[in-house]
């Protein structure tokens, strides 16, 4: 292998667009700068080229994510995610209040459902309302507090029961302040349009009210609870499961009905959450199909370092793949047009 081949091999680490722009020129400089008789790339040059390649990839990704389409998708996701997290946290407090109204003097009998969970639910609602009005930074600031609560909650669950079953809301919650802090040319309200906002409101009401409706109407009194790994229907009555599913389908409808440019980005942004959900609900359970976790006296064993690594790397990797596919498709679409 000649010195030039060695440098060309290293240049393969750079993004294609960068190579088109600089490869021949950069290799010329590397050869000019080489010592007489040098046959292999110097260690310092190898490090500089690898560092430069990483730098170029980061800059390219930064340039892609700084586009208006990504910014609008970030704002829209912030709103949708805040509402979904509101739904998740508000369901039980609302059921508690509904039982009060229905003649149960102690409600669910567990005051913690109002504090802190109910309070955090209200904060998530505040985040969503702020996002609707285009106050992204204020929404992001409040979302930081809510996300911290969700992360602490999942950490407590892991400390007590070694479970990461509810990690996906923490991942989604951690994304909310990040995406809302992004400055977009149009607010989430403008990007989503009125009828989708109406659908979001309906989805939120149906999902939040599902347990309360089932309880107050007694619709689930004669149905058997639904069990399984399906994410929203673990141990709830059939009517409640149907209402919850309807609510989440409406959320999905909002995302899937957006214009293609926005939809692709919204779907790419939720990939880390989806992968986390699948890993924690299917992959890491006691009957896990991917990375099985043994149980000791019915209690799950702690995650191994390899499982932690998968849990951290897989969502990131799949997100990167989703973004690469998205940009590849859009680039080929533009070239084909």
């Amino acid at each position: 292998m000649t010195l030039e081949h060695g440098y060309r091999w290293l240049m393969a680490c750079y993004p294609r667009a960068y190579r088109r722009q600089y490869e021949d020129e950069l290799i010329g400089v590397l050869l000019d700068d080489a010592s007489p008789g040098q046959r292999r790339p110097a260690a310092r040059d190898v490090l500089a080229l690898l560092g430069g390649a990483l730098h170029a990839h980061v800059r390219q990704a930064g340039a892609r994510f700084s586009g208006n389409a990504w910014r609008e998708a970030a704002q829209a996701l912030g709103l949708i995610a805040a509402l979904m997290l509101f739904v998740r946290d508000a369901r039980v407090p609302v059921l508690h209040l509904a039982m009060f109204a229905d003649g149960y003097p102690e409600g669910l009998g567990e005051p913690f459902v109002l504090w802190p969970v109910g309070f955090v639910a209200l904060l998530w609602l505040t985040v969503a309302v702020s996002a609707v009005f285009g106050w992204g930074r204020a929404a992001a600031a409040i979302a930081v507090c809510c996300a911290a609560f969700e992360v602490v909650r999942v950490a407590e669950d892991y400390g007590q029961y070694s479970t990461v079953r509810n990690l996906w809301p923490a991942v989604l919650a951690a994304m909310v302040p990040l995406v809302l802090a992004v400055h977009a040319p149009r607010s989430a309200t403008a990007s989503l349009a009125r009828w989708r906002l109406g659908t979001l409101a309906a989805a939120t009401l149906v999902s939040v009210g599902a347990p309360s409706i089932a309880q107050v109407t007694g619709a689930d009194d004669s149905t058997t609870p639904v069990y399984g790994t399906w994410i929203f229907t673990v141990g709830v009555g059939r009517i409640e499961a149907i209402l919850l599913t309807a609510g989440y389908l409406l959320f999905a409808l909002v995302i899937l009905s957006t214009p293609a440019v926005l939809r692709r980005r919204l779907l790419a942004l939720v990939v880390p959450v989806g992968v986390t959900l699948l890993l924690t609900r299917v992959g890491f359970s006691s009957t896990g199909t991917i990375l099985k976790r043994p149980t000791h006296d019915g209690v799950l064993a702690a995650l191994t370092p390899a499982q932690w690594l998968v849990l951290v790397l897989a969502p990131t990797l799949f997100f990167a793949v989703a973004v690469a596919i998205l940009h590849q498709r859009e680039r080929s679409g533009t070239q084909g047009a």
Partner: protein
Amino acid sequence: MHESTYLILTALVEAPRHGYAVLEEVRQISDGRVDLRAGTLYAALDRLRTEGLIDIEREEQVQSRLRRYYRLTASGAQRLAEESARLRSNADAASVRLRRAGLIVDGGAA
């Protein structure tokens, strides 16, 4: 501004230069203290072009190798002047304090 960026801009003040000439000029300006590698130089050149501080003056083929000559733009010159003023001000402040504390005498350590 990073030192290597500062030196690259300085290397382009007097005349447009190609990549290898910039490497040589930076070594000369810094008395060999800063030995930029080509990978680092082109990462910086790409960024400086994006920021509009430098631009491509011309291209030529020398011994079948592509050479691009880079030149300092007006905003690049302004940034360099501002950075030079900032560094000079900091250096003056440091010298005054060192002298006042008796730690240096006429520019050298006491």
